[in-house]
């Protein structure tokens, strides 16, 4: 068996342009190129409109670029596939299914449910929701719901877990709790995780690498490596200095162009 290459995801020269009814075009992504290593945790950060969600949707296979290529294990990405799990900000759970059946959804649609039924209980355990198997999404808290959404994606044992601001709608305590859960799950599953966020602390706390993106057109401006070990102390000196660094870069990124004339 050939050894898997270190690079799991390769993106080269990707462009995505949206046009609306009146022929206005928005360059959501412009010439994006990057590589992601197996098992890595990378974060895309930037102000809204920088194309970070678009990039994640392209990787998920929910959208197609005008040009450029996206390769997973050297093979082009065509459409969706359970080997790329996708978690949205909120409302992604099926309201007509209880926690158990939401998590089991991937197994069911792939015809693996009868064989791997026991794994549902395992994932419910992992996310600490024992006793809530029969609860419906509207009966559990937002934090619980996001843990269910993450477990539902992970049960397919994806190579990539794509997280589109999964903690964006949660309060900061719940958010910290889920961040720890994510790191734990990552250790257990070895999945490569790609996170979109606009929370700098979250990015530093979780990531191996942080991609700073700028809007109009969406571009990758900087790539920062976070190399201090987990668990990371949110008040530590390295953490704070990196935080300042990122904030400065982001501010620079969103700074208005100077007027070309003066009164």
């Amino acid at each position: 068996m050939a050894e898997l290459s270190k690079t799991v995801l390769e993106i080269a020269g990707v462009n995505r342009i949206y046009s609306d009814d009146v022929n206005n075009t928005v360059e959501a992504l412009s010439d994006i190129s990057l590589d992601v290593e197996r098992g890595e945790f990378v974060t895309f950060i930037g102000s809204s409109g920088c194309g970070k969600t678009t990039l994640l949707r392209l990787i998920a296979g929910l959208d197609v670029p005008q040009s450029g290529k996206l390769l997973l294990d050297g093979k082009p990405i065509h459409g969706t596939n359970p080997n790329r799990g996708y978690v949205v900000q909120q409302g992604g759970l099926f309201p007509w299914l209880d926690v158990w059946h939401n998590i089991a959804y991937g197994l069911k649609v792939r015809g693996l449910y009868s064989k791997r039924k026991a794994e549902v209980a395992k994932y419910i355990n992992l996310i600490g929701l024992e006793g809530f198997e029969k609860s419906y999404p509207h009966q559990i808290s937002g934090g619980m719901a996001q843990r269910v959404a993450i477990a539902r994606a992970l049960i397919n044992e994806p190579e990539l877990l794509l997280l589109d601001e999964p903690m964006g709608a949660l309060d900061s305590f719940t958010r910290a709790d889920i961040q720890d859960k994510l790191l734990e799950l990552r250790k257990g599953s070895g999945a490569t995780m790609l996170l979109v966020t606009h929370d700098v602390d979250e990015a530093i706390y979780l990531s191996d690498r942080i991609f700073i993106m700028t809007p109009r057109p969406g571009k990758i401006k900087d790539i920062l490596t976070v190399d201090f070990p987990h668990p990371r102390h949110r008040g530590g000196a390295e953490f704070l200095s990196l935080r300042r660094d990122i904030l400065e870069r982001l501010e620079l990124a969103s700074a208005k162009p100077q007027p070309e004339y003066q009164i």
Partner: protein
Amino acid sequence: MANKEISNLKFALGILLTIAGFVIAIIVNIAVPQVADVNIKEYEYFGRLYNFNDLYRYIVLCIIAIFVVIGVFSYFDEDKRKKYVKKAPFRFALGLALALWDVLGTKYLLLPQPFFPGPAAIVETFLNEPAFVLENTLYSLRLYAAGFTVGVIFGVGSGILIGWFPKVYYWVSPILKITGVIPAVAWMPFALTLAPTPFSAAVFLMTMCAWFPIASFTAQGVQSTAKVHFEVAKTLGANTAQLVFRVAIPHAMPQIFGGIAMANGFMFTTLVMSEMMGQPGGLGYYIQLSRVWSAYYKVFAAIVIMAVLFSIILAVISAVQHRVLRWQKGLVK
């Protein structure tokens, strides 16, 4: 909250009040002498003779028994206890109304006859020709089962296609909307002429009247499915058929049941009307037949059966709906 609880004493009084009216109805039937000159026929069943008063009393006894059983089952549930006690005065009045009706309609014969027979005269139908009544009831039930099944399958099936495929929506929905404003019985002459049997004609008419509400509600439910649910399902490995059957249809279930509930009323109407206008059996046919002979007590008997039968059908549908839509319980609507 304590003051809102129903004490055992109050609940016992509720049961007493509920059955008191019906007990009075039985006492009145026994105690008030038959003043008007009515020929009271005796019918032999199981080796004994019965007249209409006997059967009337048995039926009122059954009603008492039913309310006592409901009372016993309500005893253990606070909500049901409250409901039961709240309904007691109305049920008491119902018993009194029966007693009054009995006096005016049978004992003294003060109501205009033969249009307003007393309650005992109505139940006489079941002594008079029980087999024929049962036969017609079963005919209606069979027709309803066939019409409902075909109507729901056709309505839900076409609704899914209309909701899923924009092309089907474009070509079919104008036709659907037009049939929605035409009362289904207007197709009766064509149905009776063109359908191979009167039974299939009635099934066709019931399908027609159910089509608009069921199909349009279903289509709306399918169309309103959130994009995020389709996308998430796709990333989890769902294929197109699964997007329909495991995302769109479960999402549309509340609307589908809404459509069925609405169509059900139309189907009852269409069922009875088509029975009155060209079926070889059924409660509508029975009404028509009895009307010809001016046997209005039989018309009333058929109406009572319809009320009971259709109530049971509605209760069954609502029980199924609660079961299927249990995920909605507590969801703010």
